[in-house]
């Protein structure tokens, strides 16, 4: 307040009478323009090649106009229908008109698959009815129900009403184990169909355990790396980096050979009498397998940031602490460790974000309880071809990550993160 008053009362002028602020911003503008020009190519690349496709894909999660686009007659009528009353003859007529047109233009398959996602069994309902639609005569309600009895069911029409809304939370709801109804309410799915929330939680849990395990295993290694003589530490660094130079697939399959029932580890257990030949440990195709191999694969991402931060901490801090009477442990815990927190933060967030979207490894070694949400995104991308649901799940995952990032920022502080 005081400062702004000062500014108003006595504006600083340059020698040619132009206000100093104006002149300064003009001078700064040019250098800013140049800086902007330098980053423009990269900015364009990122926005065209990264941000734009992501946004386009994510919109699929809330927008799907297949029904609206092809059912041109029925859609506006459905929008006015309350979803409870008996479907009118008008609606049946519009439906038949659309079916005839869809059959002619060979687009029936698209609408049928879209409907089938909402109501199981709709695919054959649509395709077979469309085949006969041309021959149907008024009253359509009667003739259509004769072809397939399902057309008389309110359930079918309610599903069509839901599907006819292009912009709707139907896939988002499904990504969270819920169902969007014709009334516009959202209800939970029946227990035997609930899976995604559980998987989101499991994904977070696995990622968190991987971070903690990576921290416990990686911290001492990083410490050694930072404090050993350079010749030995370089060798150790190569060992840490070695997995980086082998493909993810090779590393994962190597773990299969290690951990499987007849694998190296179990053979050793049998030799040492920890397990019997008949009752070997199940270390793979379950959560344990996922955790072990993911921790190993992501370990370098934990070690490197911590190492590079440790490298910048001069030994004089610990010496100073000891000279003041601190024991080795106190000097480490109160002086050294707090200074490595930026590295821990960077490593943890790096590993966590990588882990949360891991899918090759859990797909190969995860079995039934070691798979993660990304495996289901992958499943819906490649197998069920339900890209809308995949996009919705991806969107939910993105929101979760951003939320955690925000919490991290609040608790630890992003400025506190150091990659080296």
């Amino acid at each position, binding site marked *: 307040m005081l400062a702004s008053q000062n500014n108003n009362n006595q504006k600083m002028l340059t020698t040619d009478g132009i206000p100093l602020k104006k002149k300064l911003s003009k001078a700064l503008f040019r250098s800013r323009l140049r800086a902007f020009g330098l980053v423009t190519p990269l900015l364009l690349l990122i926005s065209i090649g990264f941000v734009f496709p992501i946004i386009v894909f994510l919109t699929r999660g809330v927008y799907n106009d297949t029904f609206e686009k092809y059912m041109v007659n029925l859609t506006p009528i459905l929008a006015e229908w309350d979803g409870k009353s008996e479907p009118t003859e008008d609606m049946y007529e519009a439906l038949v008109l659309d079916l005839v047109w869809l059959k002619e233009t*060979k*687009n*029936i*398959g*698209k609408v*049928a*698959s879209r409907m*089938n*996602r909402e109501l*199981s*069994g*709709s*695919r*054959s309902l649509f*395709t077979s009815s469309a085949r006969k639609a041309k021959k149907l005569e008024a009253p359509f309600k009667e003739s259509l129900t004769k072809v397939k009895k399902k057309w008389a069911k309110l359930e079918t029409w309610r599903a069509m009403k839901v599907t006819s809304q292009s912009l709707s939370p139907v896939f988002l709801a499904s990504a969270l184990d819920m169902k969007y109804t014709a009334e516009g309410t959202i209800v939970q799915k029946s227990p*035997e*169909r*609930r*899976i995604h929330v*559980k*998987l989101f939680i*499991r994904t977070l849990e696995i990622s968190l355990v991987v971070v903690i395990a990576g921290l416990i295993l990686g911290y001492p290694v990083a410490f050694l790396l930072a404090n050993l003589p350079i010749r030995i530490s370089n060798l150790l660094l190569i060992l840490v980096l070695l997995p980086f130079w082998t493909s993810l697939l090779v590393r994962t399959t190597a773990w299969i050979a290690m951990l*499987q*029932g*007849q694998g190296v580890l179990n053979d050793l257990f049998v030799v040492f009498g920890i397990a019997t030949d008949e009752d070997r440990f199940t270390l793979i*195709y379950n959560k344990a397998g996922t955790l072990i191999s993911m921790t190993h694969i992501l370990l370098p991402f934990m070690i490197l940031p911590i190492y590079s931060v440790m490298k910048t901490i001069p030994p004089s801090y610990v010496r100073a602490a000891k000279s003041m009477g601190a024991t080795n442990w106190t000097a480490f815990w109160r002086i050294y460790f707090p200074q490595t927190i930026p590295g821990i933060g960077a490593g943890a967030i790096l590993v966590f974000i990588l882990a949360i979207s891991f899918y090759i490894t859990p*797909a190969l070694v995860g*079995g*039934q*309880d070691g*798979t993660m949400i990304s495996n*289901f995104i992958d*499943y819906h*991308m*490649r*197998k*069920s*071809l*339900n890209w809308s649901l995949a996009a919705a799940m991806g969107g939910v995952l993105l929101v979760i990550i951003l939320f955690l990032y925000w919490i991290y920022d609040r608790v630890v502080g992003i400025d506190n993160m150091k990659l080296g």
Partner: protein
Amino acid sequence: MKILKLLFASVSTLVFASVVNADSITVVSWGGAYTKSQVEAYHKPWQNKTGNQVVSEDYSGGLAEVKAQVESGNVTWDVVDVELSDALQGCDEGILETIDPSTLPAAPDGTPATKDFMDGALQECAVGNIVWSTIYAYDKTKFSTPPTTMADFFNVEKFPGKRGMRKLGKAMLEMALMGDGVPAEEVYDLLGTEAGVQRAFAKLDTIKDHVVWWEAGAQPPQLLADGEVTMTIVWNGRIFNAIAAEGQPFGLVWDGQVYDLDLFVIPKGSKNKEAALDFIRFSTDTQRLADQASWINYGPVRASSIPLIGSYHSDSSIKMIDHMPTTEAALKNALQNDFEFWADNGEELNERFNAWLAN
């Protein structure tokens, strides 16, 4: 002038040569012994006959790649070997070219193609190629009395050990019902009801803790060979290959098999559509289908091919006809995959299957 002529001539040959080379098609299949059989029986003779090139690629099923290629307008695959349900779904979604079955070659005795192919093998957008089957195989060294029925697969007390199963609802649910004593012909009727679905999952529940789930076709023979499982659901061609080519001590059980078709399709917008069509016509003629059967025990879909099936390519003592999923013995209690059923209910059942797995 002479030099100019020469130059002109050489340039035109170059152009001509590149036109010929342009007829190189990419054929995508499932890899392993199966792709090998197709290369030997289809690709090589077709290349010799037409001079065109075939580039062979592997994939692990599903329509995602086809859909991505068609939607992006950059179609690089010309022929894809797909499962029946994918052929239907792809056709419905408009990402496959239609193929007129009347252009397919007739059988040697003059039977038109439309009569010669088995039911379901000719679709609007697809031409059948083989019959393959999902069966179960076991490690002979682990059991004194070998299992013989589908029920044995689900009996971990009598036949102890881990089981390998495909991580997908399709075929597993049918097998669960058959393992629970439901006759093959009643399976789909039952599975269409909530009670039937619950019964199938209840049966799966009984062995859930003993199952190792696989996703790629090459995994189950490996799981058996590694001793990770004592019995596994497997595709019949893969396990035959392990027994015949690798000499593994595996036995297989046809009881309760679920057989299905593989078909050739052409992604919409293929740049070599004519060559691809020619390849499909050539490969699905009577002789080619019969030839293919001497490399792997997947059955030809043409009735006229059956009598022409010979012996295993590297061992003439193995008569391939005895190992086909379509022999009388194998079909005693067998189920043909109901593609309509799965097209309608696949989404729902797979979702429930996944939820069941995760719980």
